[in-house]
């Protein structure tokens, strides 16, 4: 049952592809996203080898065993999937997508399944199934809403996560993500946006001058300060695209006297591994953690970014020493704490427009950060409207699961993936849409543009920058300096 209508024109646009037929032919892969050239021969065998290797060394097997046993195919998940609600294509039902991988698991990795397969001669993996998975697993935005709705408790997002991981091991992963990760782990600049250190330093100095001019207060981005409390790492793209967010964060630290630092050795919290490969996830986490060890910071603080926060919060402990690992926080946790402690003052008279808040899936779905941003917003904003549903049940921006970084599928993201979100935003009539996540921001800006919604997408700290109140002591420092 489809509940969200799009026009046939939109549909055509969403499913069009920019890829050349000869590339599709050569790579034997009819998907909308670009893939780097890879070995196309013998894909099924290599897929099974990768699957087996992953099962051997990871924890997926017990979960798959469980899912295979309980899956009841009740189709409840279909009502929660924003993608299926738009396409109405049964192939987009989360449970259908999961079955692609579960049936291969059953057929090739369980005794009963392989016996049955040998008798009936059916169900073995082949090129067509691999191609279907390559398309299906990347139609999903990994928002995990379906998991909330499954009565028997199947985590479809975990299956999609694993499916993408296996595919990446045979060379099938969106080029945009792979190229960025390569630069981050092996490139000269060591970050996904390939920003060299001089450019970073220049940008930050420029922002510091700007802030001093605007606020009359000396606000600094402390670089490479050993022993600081927080190693601050945003999604590196913030240095290019989200100056206001960074200024807001610097302003909060200045006003509250927080001890923080940005490392010029490594300044990128983006972790595309969460979207396509546990091996990459692990390497990026270890790189981030070793930087905090090198600078002897007490903890790691992630900027306004959902996936970066989730991957660091949950996988720093996994790979860097369990409960003894340094804690990881999201910037909103810090700002909220400062507000509670009375160290942060926000002016409630400046923002009079209607404001709404978008919950990034990666920090909201498990109930981690849902109330704190709302508490912060309500202190300075009288006209706050909720979208519905919200919090743990929020609707994805439509660019989740790394798909926002795949520019060639923008029409798909803004007409299919983000359609439900667009309707939600429109219903609020908000002037400001707060989205404390680099990925959500990029997607939502494209979404409001493509859908013709009159609304400005901002980060939470963008608005905090506008309303923050500095006490006289801070102003004095500056005037003395000028004097």
């Amino acid at each position, binding site marked *: *049952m489809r509940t969200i209508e799009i026009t046939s024109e939109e549909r055509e646009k969403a499913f069009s592809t920019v890829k050349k037929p000869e590339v599709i032919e050569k790579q034997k892969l009819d998907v909308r996203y670009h893939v780097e050239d890879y070995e196309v021969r013998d894909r099924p065998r290599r897929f099974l*080898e990768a699957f087996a*290797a*992953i099962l*051997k*060394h*990871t*924890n*997926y*097997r*017990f*979960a798959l*065993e*469980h899912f295979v*046993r*309980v*899956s*009841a*195919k*009740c*189709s*409840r998940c*279909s*009502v*929660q999937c924003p993608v*299926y609600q738009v396409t109405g294509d*049964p*192939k987009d*039902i989360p*449970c*259908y997508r999961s*079955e692609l991988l579960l049936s291969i698991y059953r057929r090739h990795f369980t005794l*009963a399944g392989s016996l049955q397969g040998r008798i009936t001669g059916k169900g073995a993996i082949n090129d067509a199934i691999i191609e279907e998975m390559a398309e299906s697993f990347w139609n999903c935005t990994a928002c995990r809403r379906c*998991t909330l*709705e499954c*009565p*028997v*408790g*199947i*985590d479809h997002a*975990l299956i999609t996560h694993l499916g993408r991981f296996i595919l990446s*091991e045979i060379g099938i992963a969106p080029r945009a993500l*792979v190229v960025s990760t*390569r630069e981050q*782990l*092996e490139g000269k600049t060591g970050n996904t946006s390939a920003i060299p250190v001089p450019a970073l330093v220049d940008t930050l100095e420029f922002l510091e001058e700007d802030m001093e001019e605007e606020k009359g207060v000396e606000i600094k981005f402390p670089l490479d300060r050993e022993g600081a409390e927080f190693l601050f790492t945003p999604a590196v793209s913030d240095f290019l695209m989200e100056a206001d967010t960074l200024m807001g964060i610097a302003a909060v630290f200045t006003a509250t006297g927080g001890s923080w630092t940005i490392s010029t050795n490594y300044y990128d919290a983006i972790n595309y591994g969460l979207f396509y490969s*546990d*091996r*990459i996830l*692990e*390497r990026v986490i270890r790189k981030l953690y070793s930087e905090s060890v090198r600078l002897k910071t007490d903890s790691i603080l992630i900027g306004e970014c959902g996936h970066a926060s989730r991957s660091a919060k*949950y*996988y720093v*402990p*996994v*790979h860097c020493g*369990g*409960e003894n*690992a340094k804690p990881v926080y999201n910037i909103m946790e810090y700002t909220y704490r400062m507000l509670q402690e009375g160290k942060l003052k926000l002016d409630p008279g400046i923002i009079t427009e209607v404001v709404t808040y978008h919950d990034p899936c990666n920090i909201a779905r*498990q109930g981690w950060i849902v109330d704190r941003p709302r508490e912060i917003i309500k202190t300075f904003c009288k006209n706050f409207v909720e979208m519905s549903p919200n919090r743990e049940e929020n609707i994805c921006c439509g660019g989740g699961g790394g798909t926002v970084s795949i520019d060639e599928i923008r029409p798909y993201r803004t007409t299919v993936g983000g359609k439900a979100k667009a309707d939600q935003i429109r219903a609020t009539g908000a002037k400001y849409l707060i989205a404390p996540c680099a990925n959500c921001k990029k997607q939502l800006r494209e979404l409001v543009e493509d859908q013709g919604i009159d609304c400005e997408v901002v980060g939470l700290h963008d608005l905090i920058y506008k309303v923050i109140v500095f006490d006289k002591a801070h102003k004095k420092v500056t005037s003395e300096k000028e004097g």
Partner: protein
Amino acid sequence: METLLDFARGPLFRLTFIIMILGLLRVLILDIYGAVEAYRRAGDKRLDWKNAIIKTLRWIFPFKSAFAQRPFYSALSILFHIGLILTPLFLLAHIQLWEDGIGISWWSLPHFWADFLTILTIIAGLGLITGRLASRGARALSRKQDYFWLFILLIPFITGYICANTAISPSAYQAFMLIHILAGELIFVLIPFSKIAHCVLMPISQFIITLAWKFPARVDDKIAETLKKKGMPV
């Protein structure tokens, strides 16, 4: 006929019931063993138990969670489950069999309510079959066994109702009773090997998926080595 009935009610019942119990224990133990192994390998052993418990309870008693979406379908499904669980357990005739067999007995449903639940279960089951057939999405998902289960589960209810409430000839009664018992026993045998195993596995699902996201530490090198990719660029 009489001997056949006695056989079905006696030894065959005991055998199939034991198969069901042992089979369910097997999958439960395998599942828990897998979870314990996974926990042992997990790089971070702190689990959000509280959240898992809340979610589990919310789905065992789904009166709130289920109705937010597709209320009619949810109502059918919940009624169906209530009927499936309560009717066989609390039917007076069944309890008497237990009492005759091993001397234990418990509270029974009044006749009227037993009939009411039986009819409700049958209607709900037919509704679920219709729902599966009518929705394009559900049809695409459904395997043969998904229809088979709805069908086979209704047989004991229909035949049981006929035996308890209609004036039919003794030989017809015996025939229906035999079908009733054999269908029930077929269900017993198949439960542990099918999706109905969720009757014991569903309560641990939320713990499994909480744990499943806790990966083992440092597997990059091991996977790379197995796949002979060690040292290869991204």
